[in-house]
């Protein structure tokens, strides 16, 4: 789990990113490209640092543990954002970079430049608009689950080495009836590093390090989390 975050740029998007993430990290920094952005960010209540695209980033290395740092590249200009991404990747091989792109074309370039995750803003908005029209209920429920601090929530639960779940098969655990939660997906490290939907029907063998993605009411999720982490006796 990364413990520090840095956001680059100050515009409508980066402001929202900064506001959402600054309280969930121990260390947070906002880097802006010019004085105008600096003034705007300070007015909005952020403490900021200036940077320029030609610098060698040694400052970041000194201020943060780069392996535990997540960086949001959210400059207003896509070309500058690509340049920022590629500069950071060239310096820090293990840095986790999330880059903002306006469209798919820029998103491909951000990926090539080394971003771990790209957020194409136009596609994101288009997806939500079309989902709201075609699947209004699904959109509302998923939006509430993902982004609202309501009772219904989605969590990732990592199976610990001493968990009582280790050694069991997925179909042996009655998530719905016993815990009143729904298992959506599992990252089974025996089968790869990416997740697999539970609805594929595979009866995964649970090992330490596997991750369960579960949806449910927070109190029920807490019960499940306790059960997963409970030492196997």
């Amino acid at each position, binding site marked *: 789990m*990364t413990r520090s975050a840095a956001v680059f740029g100050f515009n*409508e*998007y980066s402001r*929202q*990113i900064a*506001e*959402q*993430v600054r309280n*969930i*990290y121990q260390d947070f920094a906002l880097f802006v490209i010019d004085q105008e952005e600096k003034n705007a960010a300070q007015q909005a209540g952020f403490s900021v640092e200036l940077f320029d695209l030609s610098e060698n980033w040694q400052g970041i290395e000194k201020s943060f543990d780069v392996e535990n740092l*997540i960086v949001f590249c959210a400059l207003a200009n896509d070309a500058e954002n690509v340049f920022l991404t590629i500069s950071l990747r060239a310096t820090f091989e293990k840095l986790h970079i*999330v880059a903002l792109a*306006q*469209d798919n074309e820029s998103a491909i370039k951000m990926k090539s430049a080394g971003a771990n*995750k790209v*957020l194409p*803003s*136009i*596609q*994101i*908005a*288009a*997806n*939500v*608009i*079309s*989902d*709201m*029209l*075609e*699947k209004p*209920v*699904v959109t*509302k*429920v*998923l939006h*509430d*689950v*993902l*982004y609202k601090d309501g009772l219904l929530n*989605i*969590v*990732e639960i990592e199976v610990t080495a001493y968990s009582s779940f280790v050694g069991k098969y997925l*179909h042996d655990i009655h998530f*719905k009836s016993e815990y*009143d*939660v*729904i*298992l*959506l997906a599992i990252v089974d490290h025996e089968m790869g590093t990416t*997740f697999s*939907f*539970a*609805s*594929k*029907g595979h009866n995964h063998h649970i090992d330490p390090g596997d991750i369960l*993605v579960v*949806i*449910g*009411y927070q109190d029920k999720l807490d019960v499940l989390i306790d059960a997963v982490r409970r030492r196997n006796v």
Partner: protein
Amino acid sequence: MVGRWLVAFAFFLHSYSPYRNTKNFAYNLLENSHYPYKKYFDYGMILLIFLSVYILIRQVKYEMSIEWLFFNNYVISFIFLIEYLTRLWVYSDSAQVVIDQYESDLFLHRPFSLSQAFKTIFKQKLEFILSPAAIIDLLAIMPFFHELRILRIFVLFRVLKLFRYAKSLRRLISILASKKFELLTLALFALIMIMISSVLIYVMEATNPKSPINTLFEALYWSVVTIFTVGYGDMVPVTPEGRMVAMIIIISGIAVISFATSIIVTAFTEKLDEIKEEKMIDDVSKLGRFYLVCGYSPLTNEVVHRLRKASKHIVVLEKDPIKAKQAQNDGMYVLNFDSASLHTYGDIRLHFERQVIAVILLQDSDVANIYTALTIRELNKKVPLHSILHKPENRKKLLMAGIDEMVNPQELVGFMSKKISNQPIAFEVIHALRSEHGGTVIEEIILDSGMSKRFFELLLHPLFHQRLSMLGIYQRETQFFAFNPSSSFAIAAGDIAIIVAKRSLVGEFRNLLHRNKV
């Protein structure tokens, strides 16, 4: 006395709804090109015209049966006669003329002028009778008097009636009419040239015994054939003077043809956008139900792309011609109109309740979207309005303008960043479900009352158990989402279940659920 009786009768007709309805129906069928049943009437008339022409051609060398001849001479002619009289009837409202005259005279304290009313009625009807289309209609009825053999040729006037029923032919006429002055000037020039050259060639050639041009008619024939660059060669001038005339008329002929071609081409070019626009409005009116998107931008392109994947029709309204052109190049139904103008919706003949599933406002600013929303709300209170929200501080204003749902991209990106930071795998799982990558989808299934038992039984069916997850049921009436409900949950009509599974499995589940219901 007669006047009073006539006024009373006019008022009776004016308020007698069966009469008005019949007249409206007849008008719609004959004249209203947007009336849905008009096309069937037109097809029927076109069929009769082709039958007439077929019979005329067949008659030349073959004997036709009595029944066919009767059909052609009486039945078709009678139908055309009825049509002609109906057109005459619906062309003007005589009852209204009498009422207007009566009220005008009453207001001015004058006795009711019956003759003035008749004069106005007669003038209006005469206007119809003397219109070119009505003259053609009348001539097309003439074969009714089939005993006069020469009148059979009048069947060909029926072909001209095609202009009434074929919209594209009417459009052709209107395009040519827009260049009436230029075409008439050119025709006058051609006429003068023909007259001069006919007389000249006659004077030069008629006295020469070797010349084939001996009469004024032959001179006229030669001039027409030459000026229109046909040049059969059956008659040629033999004198040097005659040949000189020929050279001049050949050059003039080329000019006439070139000018005529360029005038017609220009007329088409000038009207091209108008023709395309009319065609697009027609196409849109035939689309059925569609999403109406106001404003074209890269975001519009993406939204349209997504909705098209769901097999939905989309119509874009964009007032900027350059952007409208771009949208058209992207293969969309685009109408180059201002979505904020009330007139637009009349001009494009939009019927919100019948045609529009929802309106999506994707213009460049919140100001423009609010203005358009207010325009649409003035026309229709119910149509769902969705909008992009450019600045979060304008959210309340958009709500006040009647927008039902709005999306703020900046806010979405912020939420996503938080989720990516907190729970990247959970975020990816939901993202994959939404984007339907890997074939697993999240779908809505509309339920009906009395489905509860079957629904919960199916979830436990070996085909679906462990392979299909039901997240919950959204209760339409209370707008409450019941997460992971038990089998005792009472399903009401219109409730929606949210299902996660492979697409094919969701389809099968839906089929089995509804098959059982049937």
